[in-house]
């Protein structure tokens, strides 16, 4: 793919409502690269929470709305691997028995990218000229890493941030225990899984934990805060926007 004329932003609902600074950071990075951006302001959630909880009817309704809004885009970029996995992979399953919708879902599936994947694989960018003089550890979120196969891309971008020390934590690619409604319905199990993740982050000695999914990072932040551990949580876009 050549450099697109215009990038359409798909803002994960958590970023939209709780972490808008992550969205703003992504905008900063993309604009610095000279890209024209568009952001349909009637967008909402892609339907993943409903889908993962087994409510396919509701997920399908969300998917229809998503396709209505985004199908004319040239390229769609989202700061969440999990949401991209939903649109790229699960929409196809949701519409497996509906040939007309399936064609639309396939078309969108082909042009949606997770933020770091877009930078490295589409734009061919490895360094965005960022500087962040801190010790950072990276959490490889599950859907991004396993279902999209995106791991090298964020690590490449991180490796090119000036003055930053990247520390590999133990089991960086092990789940943080989020899992959407799982974290609420099975909070004790979720908390036990998270406990180990937080311990690994603490043991790494990093000042900041980063990743490509605000869902996981919100989960991690929740326990760091509960335990009064002064480690900051930042989406990778926020690090890449630092100068």
């Amino acid at each position: 793919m050549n450099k697109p004329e215009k990038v359409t932003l798909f803002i994960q609902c958590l970023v939209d409502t709780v972490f808008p600074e992550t969205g703003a950071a992504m905008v900063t990075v993309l604009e610095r690269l000279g890209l024209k951006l568009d952001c349909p302001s009637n967008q909402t959630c892609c339907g993943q929470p409903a889908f993962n909880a087994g409510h396919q009817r509701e997920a399908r309704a969300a998917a229809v709305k998503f396709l209505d809004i985004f199908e004319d885009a040239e390229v769609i970029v989202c700061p969440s691997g999990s949401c991209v996995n939903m649109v790229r992979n699960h929409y196809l399953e949701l519409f497996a028995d509906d040939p007309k919708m399936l064609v639309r879902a396939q078309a969108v599936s082909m042009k949606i990218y997770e933020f770091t994947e877009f930078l490295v694989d589409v734009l061919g960018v490895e360094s965005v000229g960022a500087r962040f003089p801190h010790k950072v550890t990276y959490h490889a979120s599950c859907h991004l890493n396993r279902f999209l196969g995106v791991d090298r891309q964020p690590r490449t971008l991180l490796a090119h941030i000036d003055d930053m020390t990247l520390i590999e934590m133990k089991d960086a690619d092990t789940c943080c225990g989020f899992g959407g409604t799982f974290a609420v319905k099975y909070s004790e199990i979720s908390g036990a899984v998270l406990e180990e993740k937080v311990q690994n982050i603490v043991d790494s000695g990093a000042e900041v934990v980063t990743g490509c999914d605000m869902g996981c990072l919100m989960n991690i932040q929740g326990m760091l805060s509960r335990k009064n551990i002064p480690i900051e949580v930042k989406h990778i876009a926020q690090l890449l926007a630092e100068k």
Partner: protein
Amino acid sequence: MSTIAPEKYKENASKGIADPVLQKALGGLQDRLGPATEKLYNSQPEGHDMRPRAHQFRRKAIDNLDVLLSTLADKVRGHGGIVHFAKTAEEAVEICKKIALENDVKTVVKGKSMVTEEVGLNLALEKEGIEVYETDLGEYILQLSGEGPTHIVAPAIHKTRREIAELFTEKLGTPYTEDPPTLTRYARKALREKFLKADMGISGCNLACAETGHIVTVSNEGNIRMSTTLPKIHVAFMGMERIVANLEEQQSILRLMSMGAAAQEIGGYVSYVGGPAQADHSDGPQEFHLIIIDNGRSKILADPEFREMLCCIRCGACLNVCPVYGKIGGQAYGSPYCGPVGAVVTPLLFGINTSADLCAGETLCGACKQACPLEINLPRMLLALRSKLSDGDPDWQVQPKSKGENLLFSGWQRLNNNRKIYDTLLDLMRMLQHLLPAKQGMITRLPWPFSGWTANRNMKKLAPKTFMQQWKETKEKKDS
């Protein structure tokens, strides 16, 4: 012995999480086996093709199960064996009981077999006054202590050497020691007597080979070889899906199974059993019975969404990477089948509604699929089960699990469909969130239905403005 109680998932998970010995054991097991298995997968001469190809072999076998089972049955009969077919658990148990009673069997030694746990064999034989001994060391320990397994391959890892020492002293009358080699020797001695006097040996079947007409068993201890060599009768229990067409496919899956189970190139003892001892042979059982069991499997077979599950060979590789299993342990699943595999198999075999928590109680992180030697898509099937639980499904006798949750999500969908209402609700929530207890911008207690979240973590407050609002404002500024 395991009782089927998946409805106690949450309760039992709590116990597991609170057990420091279990936590240490699970951590050690996952740290050791997970990465070692992955390393082996990546070092095979067949390259990265090996696992997808093996999946195809299994899928082909399942798609042709009628042909393969007929072939296996014919060949085993040709080798002098006797083949039985059991539609249900009860029937499988009856067949075995009848063989035992007709041959005046007093003592049975068993190699580890999950399907005999599934059908509840031990209890039925014991009711007839027959002594039944589990001979896998881990299973033997659990039989002595009366517990269910924690892991498919290492069933007793939750027990410390001290507990085992006390157990052996009490039940076997051996001198107290916490030395694993000495404890192993005590069990070796106790079970050797049973092997030598047993008149029936029972095994499972890891993966039969149709074209040669052999069942295959794998162990590292040698207990299955003992159980199937020394007693005069060998009865093998086989779930009907444990078969593959030909020898070259069988070996590929067998090796993958060994890698998944114990990070080995091949299990220590692999036995191909085709029938009883031949007339001119000087040892081996005089009778060989093969019991092929359906017990709900043909229903799984008939459902295209779940047929893939029959490809599973129960190696336990998914347990060694699952973050949830790694915290709660195998007993929480209340089934002979635990871990990610159990979360799918248990509902399908024992009822989806009673196993609802097993279907919903995972993070869908995908580690299981990545670790599976056959790349079985467990997360996909968990999602399919969850969907049945929300909508209900007469074919599987599923009742919708929670009307409340259904209402919640249909409300959510209406909101999600209209950005204006969505924003209005956000405004409302933004006002209300100030009523919640908070510390440094982080909410410390959320109301129902989100209260679970704040049981062990805080939650950042909604931002004063959504990204969309900010975007519009910036855009307006630019435009003006």
